[in-house]
């Protein structure tokens, strides 16, 4: 299992040809209290960089972009019921959606944890 990061503050956990995607703890700290999450529909085919989800804090709405292309296999319904999970466990329970990876070569452009730490430093 590998965890990768985007410069837009998303994380991807890669298991075989499935990527689980969420936003980073750094992102949630910048967003502030999250009050609403809109998730993509299961079965939707996302292209890389397409707006996939919306996360709304008390302050503003922010788009979550698909970090890679792929089909949505599953979404985290618990987030809709409890958006504050994004604040309390961004890297764990607050995963947004799972994608069936369309093109593994797209993973090459992503950062590892050390790279992401340097990016947010």
């Amino acid at each position, binding site marked *: 299992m590998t965890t990768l990061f985007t410069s837009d503050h998303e994380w991807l956990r890669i298991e075989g040809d499935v990527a689980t995607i969420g936003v980073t703890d750094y992102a949630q700290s*910048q*967003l*502030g*209290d999250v*009050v*609403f999450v*809109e998730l993509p529909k299961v079965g939707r085919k996302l292209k890389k960089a397409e707006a996939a989800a*919306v996360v*709304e*804090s*008390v*302050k*503003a*709405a*922010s788009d979550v972009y698909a970090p890679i292309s792929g089909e949505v296999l599953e979404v985290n319904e618990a987030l*809709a019921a409890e958006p504050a999970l994004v604040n309390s466990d961004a890297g764990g329970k607050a995963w947004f959606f799972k994608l069936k990876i369309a093109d593994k070569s797209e993973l090459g452009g992503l950062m590892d944890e050390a790279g992401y730490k340097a990016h947010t430093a």
Partner: protein
Amino acid sequence: MMLARDDQSPLKRTPLHALHVARGGKMVPFAGYDMPVQYATGVLREHLHTRKLAGLFDVSHMGQIALRPKSGKLEDAALALERLVPQDIVAVAVGRQRYAQFTNGAGGILDDLMVANFGSHLFLVVNAACKAADEAHLRAHLSDVCEIEPLAGRALIALQGPKAESVLATVCADAAAMRFMDAGPHVVDGIDCFLSRSGYTGEDGFEISVPAERAESLATRLLANSDVLPIGLGARDSLRLEAGLCLYGHDIDTTTTPVEGALEWSIQKSRRHGGARAGGFPGADKILAQLANGAPRRRVGLKPEGRAPVREGAPLFADTTSSEPIGAVTSGGFGPSLNAPIAMGYLPSPLAVAGAPVFAELRGQRLPLRVTAMPFVPNTYKR
């Protein structure tokens, strides 16, 4: 999420700036000032803390102006100010305060403000973004009768919430006896202050005008009480939205009249048709006609039926298919005390009735909302 700056002029600082930074305030530009939008507590908990205990807000960016009658007779200053506002200022008793609006010739609102009678003079509190224009407006129209003195050397601290009275009472013997909208000079923590029992949260509370050099020590003293947390502009906005209170430049502006803004409660009978001093303020023809016959559109409260916040600028539609918007959201977000999204906006008067369904367009979808009576959260003023 980044907030854009309108100009490159350096941001001004309030006398409490160092305190905000020391307490971890996340500083953002607001009306030309470097202000805390939140502290480490976060907007949600700051909001809920204010409703449960007490919050301390730095509102020193707002304008404080003394209006002194050259004749020495307060009524002359009151009558003069009535040339610029549709309110009865003569009737404001010594030690009392009233909400007012500066109007323009078209009946629009130049700014909204508080006017207090301090016996020898009137004390005005105006919005930060409008204060230079307000001062010029007062000078242009009232200089024949009044000295207009901006009180730039004073900070303004709001203490709001159910514990505000007990906290302030530890440093001000007069606090507990004051009622909502009482205002006047009082000694607070040994400092000569101007104190009013009012605020912008819907909660009981006070606003304390204090000499700038004493502001930090007073704020520190109040924050030493375990019931009090410092609160940023983020929670100030969600608190006032739940209370149904207008934010100038958003919910009311030069294109909205006080009647369209649902502020007719603030226009006393004496200034209306048939009143002792009817009219005589900018835009009186239009505003008095709207008071008598109704306005074409009205500011209303809106509750989204779903969970998604509907924010400022979202167009409003009568149904899911029509192409022409019938209005727009002017303020919107999440109400922490309601744990639900809330908004306000303008609708044609026939639709501006509680329970009416409307739709807001958000990310290409039409979301259902209901017109709702305001305040969203009942106020707890000590009348």
